[in-house]
């Protein structure tokens, strides 16, 4: 558990955070300039003006009342800044081995987990954005951190690259037990990785809790283009090259067709990402539609999200779905809680991210 009771004076405002973070992965969301990076730097010990208390599993890193303020080198944090912050005079391998607490075995394991073998002799200047992020993540992991601080590890990457890095982050989450503070302004990332969310605005905690609980406010706060509202844990069932689809089964839910993705082994775990605006809602059984994925369900809840309405739909099995509709569509279909509906999604709207 990470206890935060923190004040950091900044140019425009004072960052004030009081929160107990119990999650394995805590996503820190908020617009630019909300104080997200400052929070990570304060935990890492890189903000001299930080006051208050920061404790990790009961051990204080900073505690004004007891005059505790551990130097960064004694805090055992793994910090991955937004631009990776690799040492330009060292190769990828030298960067990974830079930490004072690693050993050969640890270095080797981390390099394999993050798929860095082909990059080891290259200098940061010749690495792509995604490669730099992976090297920086490896450098932090090798040093046996007690907490990982990741600052928008996916922000500077295009969609394709994001989908290649996210699996590594999920592996890190599964294989290393250190808790993670994950700064992002992307709701989809937060939902696919985090079990707790802290929303910051102008240096103050605006909301905190389980991702699904504060989803409506998150969806409203985020840029619509960046948000992926439907994220489902699933398993690959089969590939059908002739039909051009890969079939997956949502854990405890129905089968879904996605565009053919032969790289995913049958039985492999994956996260399905479907934008709420790609979910069609019908009030009668759907026939003669090209969409491959059609399911019967009931409206559970309607929420205003900006100019749109976010409709929560419970299917007979598995997790609920979210559909983003215009108020006009909601009115014309007379959608109300408990109304029977059918949801439809084209295969191409289903993305496999991990």
């Amino acid at each position, binding site marked *: 558990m990470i206890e935060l009771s923190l004040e950091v004076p900044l140019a425009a405002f004072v960052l004030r955070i009081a929160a107990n973070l119990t999650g394995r992965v805590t996503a820190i969301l908020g617009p630019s300039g909300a104080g997200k990076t400052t929070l990570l*730097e304060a935990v*890492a*010990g*890189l903000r001299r003006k930080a006051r208050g208390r920061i404790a990790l599993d009961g051990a204080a890193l900073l505690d004004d009342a007891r005059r505790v303020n551990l*130097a*960064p*080198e004694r*805090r*055992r*944090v*793994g*910090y991955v*800044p937004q631009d990776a*912050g690799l*040492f*330009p*005079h060292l190769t990828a391998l030298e960067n990974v081995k*830079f*930490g*004072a*607490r690693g050993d050969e075995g640890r270095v080797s394991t981390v390099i394999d987990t993050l798929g860095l073998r082909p990059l080891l002799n290259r200098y940061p*200047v010749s690495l792509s954005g995604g490669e730099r992020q992976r090297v920086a993540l490896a*450098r*932090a992991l090798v*040093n046996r951190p007690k907490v990982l601080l990741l600052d928008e590890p996916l922000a500077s990457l295009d969609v394709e690259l994001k989908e290649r890095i996210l699996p590594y982050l999920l592996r890190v989450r599964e294989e290393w037990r250190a808790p993670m503070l994950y700064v992002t302004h992307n709701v989809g990332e937060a939902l696919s990785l985090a079990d707790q969310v802290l929303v910051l605005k102008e240096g103050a905690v605006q909301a905190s809790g389980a991702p699904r609980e504060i989803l409506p406010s998150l969806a409203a706060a985020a840029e619509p283009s960046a948000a992926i509202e439907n994220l489902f844990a699933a398993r690959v069932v089969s590939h059908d090259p002739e039909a051009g689809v890969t079939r997956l089964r949502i854990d405890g839910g129905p089968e879904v067709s996605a565009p053919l993705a032969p790289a995913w082994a049958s039985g492999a775990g994956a996260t399905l990402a479907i934008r709420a605006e790609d979910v069609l809602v019908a009030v009668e059984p759907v026939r003669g539609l090209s969409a491959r994925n059609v399911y019967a369900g009931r409206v559970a809840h309607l929420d205003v999200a900006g100019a749109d309405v976010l409709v929560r739909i419970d299917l007979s099995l598995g997790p609920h779905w979210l559909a983003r509709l215009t108020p006009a569509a909601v009115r014309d279909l007379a959608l109300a809680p408990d109304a029977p509906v059918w949801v439809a999604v084209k295969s191409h709207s289903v993305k496999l991210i991990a």
Partner: protein
Amino acid sequence: MLTADERGVVLFTLGIATLGTLLILPVGIAVALALARYRGPGKGALETLFSLPLVLPPTAVGILLLEGLSRRTTLGAWLSTLGLDVVFTWRGVLLATSVMSFPLLVRSARTAFEEVDPRLVGIARTLGHGPVAAFFRVTLPLAWRGVAAGATLAFARALGEFGATIMVAGNIPGRTRTLALAIFHESQLGRDDRAMALAAATVVLAFGALWTTEWLTRRRARRRQT
């Protein structure tokens, strides 16, 4: 070619310049780092103060050192009782040339340290290295070309220093006579061929030092482009 005495002058000058550069290196690095990182009031005044020997007439620096260290002063008398006379000794040559070349080292090294992203130092700290280790593993390696270029410039300046040296140490054959002083001396006596031979020696030494600086600076520029 050079006579035995003249070769002695060349070796003495090289020795003084080398020793002086080695002595000012740690101090200059510390001052340069402090100037690069310091953001408080008086930054401009401090930077100007450390650059002052560059713009003052060398003889002015020389007279200040002479007056400060002669046996009439407390400091000079105390050094004398330790057997460490400065004025009119090789130590005076070392002091005068070091003071005059110090700002060149500091200016070049300061620019190099300013180019090192302080966040990289912070990251090195989070990876378990203390401030000293972080300096030697990150700051210095990233700034070393600038530091080395500054040291070379300082070395070349020490080779050619005249005004401050002659004020503090005089021009004593076999004791404080450097190349620059010897050229002046031979020319005053009308021995222009000897003055020219010594001048040729300084050209070779100075060219070597400056070429090294150029080479280091070029490599630094190339790395920044990639």
